[in-house]
Every structure is written in structure tokens, then in C-alpha cells.
């Protein structure tokens, strides 16, 4: 029952978000969410690309969970991949909340982050950014309004999951790899991690071919089909830079009777990938814990706004930090499912794993 309730509420939130985006998107007004109980004067909001993808839907839910825990007004702003709309919605919400806004934003594109941070500072709100920002934009240069930037380090993560793939087929042979959109930072990092892992096998694992499938399941399906023709049984494993593409590759393998015989790995930790691990078809994935980033991106600025912490006195490792990716494999999947991530909103940096590095 409890689960039903959350599902329904998420759906209602999404419906309103979608309706708002559709009806009011053109004028750039965000759709107001009903306040659950108004115990604080701060308005909380998560801005994200689209609730159509599981990662962002969970990210939005994380924010909702935190807002509920303090009884604050909470809104979800959806960019639908449009930077202009994303920024316009944020400006409108800043105006409406009179600057008393705590914003947790996954900018549509890196340059957007600067504009958003400047707008929030001007209005006197607080902002946390996720994943995308220019390398020279730092929270400490916008004290105290730019609270923090959170990300996940794609290089060690991809390296770790690639090693799980090698283990799954015995550590020797050829693999094929599906990459994301070539210019995306996560796509570049994950490719680098894969290259590192391959280099460390001293030639035992060979990268037969690398193709960008643009994070698209269908493209991954088509490319994998062609690979099976080109390389045949030389393909011992498939590396996918995200689970969506991994699922496309898996279905192509299934069409050729190879599901479960040729292992696949992905990144993101979506439900379908976790189920495929249980079925022995995926060798592993990395779960990002968007519930945590969705909630903590509001909890940290809220702690500052209410005087619990003074963010300007925190070190850089608390202003620009990586979250923890959880490696899920056949061995750990049962444990992963039975212990869903528990989030303590008072443990602000408990899951942070080091300061963000910039690779030239």
C-alpha cells in the first residue's frame, strides 16, 4: 500500500509537471505544485531534463522526499532538453518565490550553469548544480549562494564495470563498446575508463570496435546486430556506456540466441538492468543513487539557509564533490535489492567520495 501511494503520488506529480510543461512551457512559467504543509518560507525545486527517463524521475522523487521531510513547498522544473526553457522557468520561479528559492539543478548543458548561478545569486536564493558546469565555474566564487556542485566520476566507475565484464568472460578475448553522444562529458569519461581497463590487461582484452549509439537503445540494437555479422563469435562481451544502450545490445544478442552467453555491462542502475543481472544476462551495472542526489542537493543548501552550517566555511571537498556509484553484479544484486538506499538528510556529505578533478 505504501508503495502504491508513492507510485500514485509520483504519477500525479509527473502529470502536473507534464501538463505544466505542455501548457505553460511556451510562456516559460513553471507549474506550481500543491504545498503539502507549509512550515518553511523557502520554496524548494529540482530542475531536470525529463521525467520520461528513470534517472531523472527518481532524482525528482529524491527532492520530493526531502521537501516532505521539512514540510516545504516543492516544484519540479522540466527543461525537455531546451536550455532556454530551463533558464526561463528558473527565473520565473525566482521571481515568484521572491528569491527565497533553494534550487537543485541538473543543467541541460554546461554553459547554462553559469547563467543559472548568476540569476540565483542576484535574487538571493541558493543553488546546487549536478553533472554539468564549466570547469572554471566554482561554488566558492559565488559565496554564499552557489552552495555546491555534485557529480559522479565516470573514469574509475567505467573502469570498474569494464573489469566486471572482463571477469565475466574469463579475462581474455575481444569486446565491443557502445558510447554516448561524443561531446558529452560522461561519455568521454566512461570511454576513458574503458580504455584504462583495457590497457591494464596487457593485450589480453582487445577492443574490436567502438561506436557511439548516442545513449539510444534502438541504435545500440542495430549496431550490435551488425557487429555480430562483422565479428561473429569473436565478441566475448559488450560494454555499454549506459544501461539503455546495454538493453538494446542485450535484445540484439537475444535475437541471435546469445543472451546470457555474451555478457553485457551498463551504467546507471535502471530496474531493467538490475533484472537482467538477476537473469544472468548482464554482468553488472553502476547505480548512481539519484534519490540521494535529488534530496541532498536540497538538504545541503537548506542546512545553510537555516543556519545549521555555514557553507562558506566548508572546504572545497564539500563544495565540489563526487557521489558514490554502487557496483551491482550477480554477487551483490540480491543485497542491492534488499537494502534500498536509505538516506539520512542530516548526514550531508556521508556519501561524498572526494573532490572533483578536472582532466585537461
Amino acid at each position, binding site marked *: 500500500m505504501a508503495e502504491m501511494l508513492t507510485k500514485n503520488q509520483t504519477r500525479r506529480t509527473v502529470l502536473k509537471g507534464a501538463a505544466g510543461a505542455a501548457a505553460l512551457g511556451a510562456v516559460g512559467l513553471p507549474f506550481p505544485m500543491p504545498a503539502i504543509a507549509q512550515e518553511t518560507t523557502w520554496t524548494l525545486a529540482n530542475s531536470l531534463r525529463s521525467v520520461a527517463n528513470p534517472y531523472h524521475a527518481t532524482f525528482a522523487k529524491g527532492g520530493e522526499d526531502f521537501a516532505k521531510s521539512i514540510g516545504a513547498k516543492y516544484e519540479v522544473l522540466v527543461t525537455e532538453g531546451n536550455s532556454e526553457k530551463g533558464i526561463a522557468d528558473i527565473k520565473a520561479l525566482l521571481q515568484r518565490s521572491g528569491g527565497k528559492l533553494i534550487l537543485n539543478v541538473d543543467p541541460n548543458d554546461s554553459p547554462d550553469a553559469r547563467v543559472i548561478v548568476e540569476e540565483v545569486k542576484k535574487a538571493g536564493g541558493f543553488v546546487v548544480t549536478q553533472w554539468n558546469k564549466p570547469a572554471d565555474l566554482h561554488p566558492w566564487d559565488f559565496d554564499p549562494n552557489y552552495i555546491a556542485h555534485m557529480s559522479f566520476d565516470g573514469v574509475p566507475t567505467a573502469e570498474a564495470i569494464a573489469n566486471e565484464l572482463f571477469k565475466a568472460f574469463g579475462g581474455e578475448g575481444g569486446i565491443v563498446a557502445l558510447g554516448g553522444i561524443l561531446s558529452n562529458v560522461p561519455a568521454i569519461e566512461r570511454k576513458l575508463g574503458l580504455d584504462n581497463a583495457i590497457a591494464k590487461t596487457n593485450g589480453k582484452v582487445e577492443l574490436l570496435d567502438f561506436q557511439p549509439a548516442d545513449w539510444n537503445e534502438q541504435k545500440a540494437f542495430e549496431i550490435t546486430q551488425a557487429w555480430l555479422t562483422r565479428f561473429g563469435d569473436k565478441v566475448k562481451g559488450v560494454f555499454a556506456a549506459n544501461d539503455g544502450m546495454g538493453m*538494446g545490445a542485450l*535484445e540484439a544478442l537475444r535475437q541471435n540466441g546469445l543472451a546470457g552467453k555474451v555478457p553485457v555491462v551498463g551504467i546507471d542502475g535502471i530496474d*531493467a538492468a538490475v533484472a537482467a543481472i538477476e537473469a544472468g544476462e548482464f554482468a553488472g551495472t553502476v547505480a548512481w543513487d539519484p534519490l540521494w542526489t535529488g534530496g541532498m542537493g536540497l538538504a545541503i543548501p537548506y542546512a545553510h539557509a537555516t543556519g545549521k552550517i555555514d557553507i562558506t566555511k566548508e572546504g572545497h571537498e564539500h563544495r565540489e564533490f563526487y557521489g558514490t556509484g554502487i557496483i551491482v553484479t550477480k554477487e551483490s544484486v540480491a543485497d542491492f535489492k534488499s537494502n534500498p538506499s536509505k538516506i539520512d538528510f542530516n548526514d550531508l556529505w556521508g556519501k561524498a567520495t572526494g573532490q572533483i578533478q578536472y582532466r585537461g
Partner: protein
Amino acid sequence: MKIAAPAGGTWIKQWRRWAPVAVLVGLCILIGLFNSNFFGLSNLIRMLNTASIPLVICMGATFIILMGSIDLSAEGVIAICAVAASMLVANDFTGVAIGPLSVPAAIVIGGLIGLLNGYIHVKFRIPSFMTTLGMGFAGIGVATAILGGVMVRISDNEFRNYLSLGRFLDIPAAVYIAAIAVGVAWVIQERTRIGRWLYAIGTDEATARNAGIPVDRTRILIFGIAGTFYGLAGALSAAQIGRGHALISQDRLFAAITAVVVGGTALSGGVGSVLNSVIGVFIVIVLTNGMILMGIEPYVQKGVQGLLIIAAVALALDRSRLDVVK
């Protein structure tokens, strides 16, 4: 293949008629020279399988384009129908499980959305470009709203087997279904009044109206027919990947329109055929498959695709009838 060429076709007209086929054959030979696996039976079956869903989508898209209109709603309609189909068979999201009936259900839903497209376009005199663009967005929005960002996982293996995975004579079920869809489209085009009216409307709507053709009704009906093909494509997509979600048809629309045009159906209407689109789909699929077989750099692949589209249209399209090119 029906290309509405004036009578007494010169050799150049004959050539135009067969240009898409020549492009396809040329491509196959070229790729086969680089990688002999290309002509292997298993690769041919893989390409047929990859082509099955685009073929079904293109049957609908071709009718609309023959009429001189455009339908940008395909991705949205497919998304809704795929989500509906996956929610109607045994799944982890709803308790409903009507098994095989989910396929006609998806087709009917697709058809109804198509009729709505046509009705709005004709009755409110809104260009098909805008009507269908809006409907496409609305479709993805509705699919998103129903699911709230999650995916529906299909646990009905029969559904997946009969629509996609199962094989008869080593050829996957989806290929047979696509072949039937092509057959149905061909019959509609060649053997029904709707098919003939379609060309008349696409060639010159005013004349068609004067000749007593019920233009408005035909237009609405054609949008409905296109919708049924998208509905079927939705059910096939869900069966192919075993899940239903709002982004299931991502990037399908542009590929479909490309295939229709590369096949030699003119965007201006009245010229082309569903069989042209079959050739067009195979040109696109063979090219994608071939470039990976030949090991062409990913950066170069998109450029080659773009050039091929322009070249194919230049070869196939009879521009002598066009007063202006816009």
C-alpha cells in the same frame, strides 16, 4: 512501382524509376566487396529483422507524403501504442493481461489518434506539419505521464515470440508481420479507391476536388490508416525490446522520412509508392549495417548518410515537373 511519369517515358524517366533500386544494388555490391560476410544468410536475416519496424512505420508515412502532407506524430503515436500494448499483456505495472488482443488494441489506439490528427488538420485547417508535430509531443507527454518515468517490463513471452523473437524457417516473426503490413499497404494503394484518390490529391488537390473526390474525408481516413501502422509498429517495438517506455521510438521519425524520400517518393506529393519506401528502408538499413561492417569511423558515418540522402534524391526525383523548388 508507380511513379507518375508522363506517358512516353524517355530513358531518363526509366532510369529515375529504377534509380533507388540501382542505389541499393550498388551499395550492396560495394559493401560485399569489403566484407563478404555481408551477403551471409545470417546477416541478411539480421538486416530484415532490423528493417521490420521501420518498414511498418514507412507504410503509414508514405501514404501521408503521397498526399502532399507530412506526419510528424509517428514517434508519439508509437510511444503511446507501445506503452499501451506492454500494459495490456502480462507485465510488472498493471494487472491486466489480455495477451494477443493487445495487438489489435494498439492498432486501434494508433488509428484513433491518426483520425484525430486528420480531423484537426482538415476541419480546423491547421497544416499537417503543425497538427502532427503537436500530436507527437502530446503522445510522448501522455506516455510519460502514464508511466511517470518508469518502464513497463513485459513478462508475456508468447507475446514477444509471436511478434518478434520466434522464428519460422529461421526468419524472425517481426519480418513476416512487416511483410504482411507491406502487402496490406500495397493493396490499399493499388486496389482501392482511397489509393487512387491519394495520388489525385497529392498531384493537384483543386483538380481532385473538382473531379468530385471527397478530399476531406480521404485525408482524414489516410491519417487514420497511417495511425494504424504506427500502432502496429508500437506493438512490435514493445515486443522487440520486451519493455514499453516513452522514449521507445526515439529517432524513428527522421529515419522513416529519410527512407521514404530516399526511396523516391517526393515530399511534394503525388509521386512515389509504398514499394519505393521498401527500397528506401533497405537503403538506409544496408548503409548503417554496411558502414559498421566496413569499419568506417563513427565521425564519418553521419556525413556519408547525409551525402547519400542528397545523392539518392537527386537521382530519383523528377524535377522537370516542378515549377519552383522550395
